[in-house]
């Protein structure tokens, strides 16, 4: 169990003008599963490599349980990184791959064999020890990579895009496996991903990094309900922003006066709401009810995506197909903005 603390962690690559990572501070509680989320090139892999000791730190501090590890060599940090493409050593058998870390620690051969067999069972690959990595499927390779990391009982486990190379049906299986093993062994785990869905399904907490800076560090739900700013909301798939100002629990905007949930401070800002939370057609309620002109309508199977116009504002709506059947392009339809689903970014 290790508490990880990053303090003003900064990385400037030689010759670069802007820092790849700019004063990142994070407290990751012991045993927690945290996602570093951001588009590619935002500095998240840089962060992982600095924690693992694979990249020198430009400035800032990394503490494990309150003690700096910056002077430790990578092999002494007991931080294991699992790369996105697994990087199983191709010339070694699966068992030799998994036992690698123990061999480096010069453990006796029979103990290595025993622990490899144990962990192979744990990742549900009991009979594959003698195979070569290239004879395994992608999902199996990932489990071997995970086993190779877990066998050394790392203080911190780092995962690089752990679900992104997997098919949809394997993703949930792997997600459960990672979550179960991580909880069982209580290993503080940090993973990076560019995919907000991957972050949401796997992480306890998400740190969103944009352009090398931490935007928001919160639970997954908070990112949907209370994004800190427009960029954050956009990263999580929200496209609806309406300018205006808050006063007395309501939002004055080109849409009219919209009733807000409690607790939103007065002042200018942008009203935002997720497309799936809007009600349209027969489902529209009386609160915050507006009349919209339907610009386009696309049937997506389980949902119907509509673009509607209210005044000069274009709004995206993801509706229940049953609510949208009667609605035609070019016609008007009622929509409503349920107050609990509204939020204002500044």
């Amino acid at each position, binding site marked *: 169990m290790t508490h990880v603390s990053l303090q003003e962690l900064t990385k400037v690559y030689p010759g670069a003008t802007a820092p790849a990572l700019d004063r990142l501070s994070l407290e990751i509680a012991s045993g927690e599963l945290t996602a570093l989320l951001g588009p590619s090139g935002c500095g998240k892999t840089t962060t992982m490599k600095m924690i*693992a000791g694979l990249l020198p730190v430009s400035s800032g501090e990394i503490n494990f349980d309150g003690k700096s590890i910056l002077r430790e060599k990578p092999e002494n940090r007991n931080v294991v990184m699992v*790369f996105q493409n697994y990087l199983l050593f191709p010339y070694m058998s699966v068992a030799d791959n998994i036992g690698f870390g123990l061999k480096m620690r010069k453990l006796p051969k029979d103990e290595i064999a025993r622990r490899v067999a144990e962990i192979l069972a744990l990742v549900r690959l009991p009979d594959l020890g003698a195979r070569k990595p290239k004879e395994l499927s992608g999902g199996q390779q990932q489990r071997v990579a995970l086993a190779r990391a877990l066998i050394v009982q790392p203080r911190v486990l780092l995962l690089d895009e752990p679900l992104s190379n997997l098919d949809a049906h394997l993703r949930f299986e792997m997600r459960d496996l990672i979550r179960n093993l991580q909880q069982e062994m209580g290993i503080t785990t940090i993973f990076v991903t560019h995919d907000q869905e991957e972050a949401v399904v796997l992480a306890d907490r998400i740190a969103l990094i944009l352009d090398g800076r931490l935007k928001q560090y919160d639970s997954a739900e908070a990112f949907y309900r209370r994004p800190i700013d427009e960029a954050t909301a956009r990263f999580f798939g929200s496209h609806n922003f309406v300018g205006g100002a808050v006063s007395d629990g309501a939002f004055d905007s080109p849409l009219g006066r919209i009733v807000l949930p409690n607790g939103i401070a007065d002042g200018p800002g942008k009203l935002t709401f997720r497309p799936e939370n809007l009600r349209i057609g027969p489902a529209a309620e009386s609160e915050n009810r507006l009349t919209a002109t339907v610009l386009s309508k696309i049937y997506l199977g389980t949902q119907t995506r509509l673009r509607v116009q209210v005044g000069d504002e274009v709004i995206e709506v993801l509706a229940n197909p049953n609510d949208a059947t009667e609605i035609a392009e070019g016609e008007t339809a009622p929509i409503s903005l349920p107050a609990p689903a509204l939020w204002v970014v500044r």
Partner: protein
Amino acid sequence: MSDRWKIILLLTPAMSVIVLLFLGGLALGLMRSFNYMPIIGLINPNFDAYLAVFTSSEFYLSFLLTFHIAFTSTAISCVLAIGAALLLRRTFVGRSLINFLFQLNLTVPHLVGAVGILYLFSQSGSFARLANEFGMIERPSDFPALVFDPFAIGIILQYVWKEVPFIGVIVLANMQSLGEDYESVARSLGANKWQSFIHVLLPLIIPGVLSASVIVFAFTFGAFEIPAILGANFPAALPVLAFRKFTDVDLAARPEAMAMAMVIALLSAVMIFFYIRYTRQKFRN
């Protein structure tokens, strides 16, 4: 036109060259080595040439010398090339200069290198003169024999000069396409620098090193002009000996030359076997 005919047509020009010149040359050499060549009236094949070759101590000395040259040059070049590649994969002052000199060196023919080594290391060469300047020797003959010497030091120096850049460039490219992530994995799993080199990087680059070594070994075993310039008169390297037999005024020595050529060919066939083993995928890649 079916694919089959297309393939045959596409391969015909190259295969004609290979079959007629390369295989033809080998086959005729083989026939001649058995004293069999109907077009010039030799119709009774025999083993005389092989008997003569395999009973002469000069052949064995030559063979051993040539093997020593090829093996030692290849081994030293491999070790130095891996070291050089390890150094060159990091950025530092002077890296691009060495890189450039490596590539430059690749384009310089062996023959020029051989003459350069001759002028540097002969007993009246630059190093002998420097040694005299510093009062270490008085006469050229005081300088140790590094060329025309029985241990083929000059020849090996020349090959090392040429082949370290050759293997180095291949190994470096190999390392660069592997990236550093495998070693990062090893380090994060608890391997120190030395362990991650021995257990991870080395096994990953060994196939590339071996396939380059095969080319180097075969070349250094069969090259003529370098031992001809830098080698001792006796024993001479096998290709030099074969050439001498071939150009002997006594035409009876020719089949012996052919027999030696066959020995060289046989050895390179073994090399090809290894080359194929280590580079099968490369051809397609």
